[in-house]
């Protein structure tokens, strides 16, 4: 294949790519914050003997930097899916970060052998179920979410 043909092909590919960019730019969906205006609340399994989390503590826990509670039991981190509005709200309001950054941190953990990425639950019902039934578990739900009779502790900031 001759060089000139390759270059022509290249400009064609380039112009298609630019057209694609423009198309995406004109049709993208906005990043919206939904749910309660109050920050989501942290919930823990009753086995966890901690009644206060600073911003730094939460960043260390959800960044999977530290693995054991003060009593020595394993920290089990539960999170909602990347696109869940409560996850987004928790990331921004409690962790002072964005979902895309958390995803980056967790991928690095999961694929470099340096830690365990959080367990992903599909919705808040499952979050409540898992956190209440797993010793050492920590998660979060919307401030307005009814935790009912579940055995979880709500930790207010």
């Amino acid at each position, binding site marked *: *294949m001759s*060089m000139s043909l*390759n*270059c022509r*092909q*290249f400009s064609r*590919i*380039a112009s298609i*790519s630019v057209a*694609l*960019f423009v198309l*995406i*730019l004109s049709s*993208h*969906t*906005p*990043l919206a914050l939904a749910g309660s205006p109050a920050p989501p609340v942290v919930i823990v399994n009753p086995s966890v003997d901690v009644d206060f989390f*600073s*911003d*730094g*503590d939460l*960043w*260390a*826990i959800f*960044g999977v*930097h*530290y*693995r*054991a*509670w*003060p009593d*020595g*039991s*394993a*920290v*089990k981190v539960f999170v909602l*899916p*990347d*696109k869940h509005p409560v996850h987004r709200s928790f990331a921004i309001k409690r*962790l*002072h*970060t*964005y979902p*895309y*950054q958390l995803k*980056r*941190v967790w*991928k*690095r953990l*999961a*694929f*470099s*052998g*340096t*830690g*365990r*990425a959080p*367990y*992903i639950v599909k919705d808040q019902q499952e979050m409540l179920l898992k956190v209440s039934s797993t010793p*050492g578990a920590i998660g979060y739900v919307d401030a307005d979410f009814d935790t009912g009779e579940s055995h979880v502790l709500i930790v207010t900031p």
Partner: protein
Amino acid sequence: MSLSSPHKQRLRCLSLGILTLAGSSTATAIEVSDQLSVHGFVSQSYVHTAGNNYFGDSQDGSFDYRELGINAYWQPTADLSFAGQLLSRSAGNLSDGDPRIDYLLADYSIGKNPDLWGGVRLGRFKTPYGFYNQTRDIPHARLGVIAAPSVYFEQLRDTLLATDGLNLYAGSVNSWGTLELDMFAGKAKGGVAELEYFALQTDAPGEFDSIDVWGAQIRYEPIGGQTRFAFSIYEPDLQYLPGSPDPFEPGTVESTAYLLSAQYNAERWSLTTEYSRMENDLAGFGPRFPSKEGVSEAWYLQGEYHLSSEWTLMLRYEEQYLDTADRKGTRLYEPVFGIAHLAFSKGIAAGVRWIPAPDWVIKGELHHTDGTLWLPKQDNKSIAEREKVWNFFALQFVYSF
């Protein structure tokens, strides 16, 4: 590129295994038990280049770039964990797809409060270097089809990937943010032809069979990681074992690489820059290759724009110089090799990443490059046939769980 048939069979088994596992999973990891989780990925790329080859005979369009990986993480107790990853990478003449152990380690951590933690890793661990070295082979963790080729150049790739030895780590979170430190020492992979091109400009008869390394990385980020900083040191000592016959004598390359990394993350965009400076001391290769000291340099500036949680655009400018004493290559390199452009690369890259579903990523990328320093040499063995200005286009499909 052709593969031997037992080899192909192995690959087929690995991919089949991954697909079987993938079929049984939802969008995320496989939780074998409370303590054991399994992740994996498959990527296939199409590469089309003009001027030079990049991963196979890519000037005619090549599918010869694919990655397969599967890993397990087992944490029997809160402070003890074991992790391993098996990886197969096919990349033109550079990687033949042979499954290899990417990492296999035991990790013992201490510290039961978030203010201060630490631990030790023993075995084969991913070498902490810059923001991206540990995940450069993980297609869905990379923003682009390939990692920035200036700082993460192919020639040093295999050496940098992992270290067999000891890794001590420590960290602390406070109201001012997170401070982390990694220190490590051990052995790195030898016998890499691409490395011979970097040091000697040719695939020499012998090889760098023994590579001792040590290094450190310090990282800082305020809570939330809006800004991130890292400083890495990496020091490989390479021993050359001559073949027979061999124009080169058993020389050594002693290098020290410094890498500064910085990132700013906003809601919709990120800006990343990394600058590396590598001091190289080559000695003892005999009369055919006079001893020399030089400084290699590389840097890039990359912008990402998040249109939505599915779409990201990327734009990057980057440069790499083999020897800062001769950035154009005309003084030290052209008289010896007949061309100057093997001493530098300057390039611009634009890309788009689409996440159509949580477990799928599709990426497209265009590069325009002046100079052949970061060009994979095993795909372009003839110095005379390498084109100074060349283009790269790639599409990549990734499935991960």
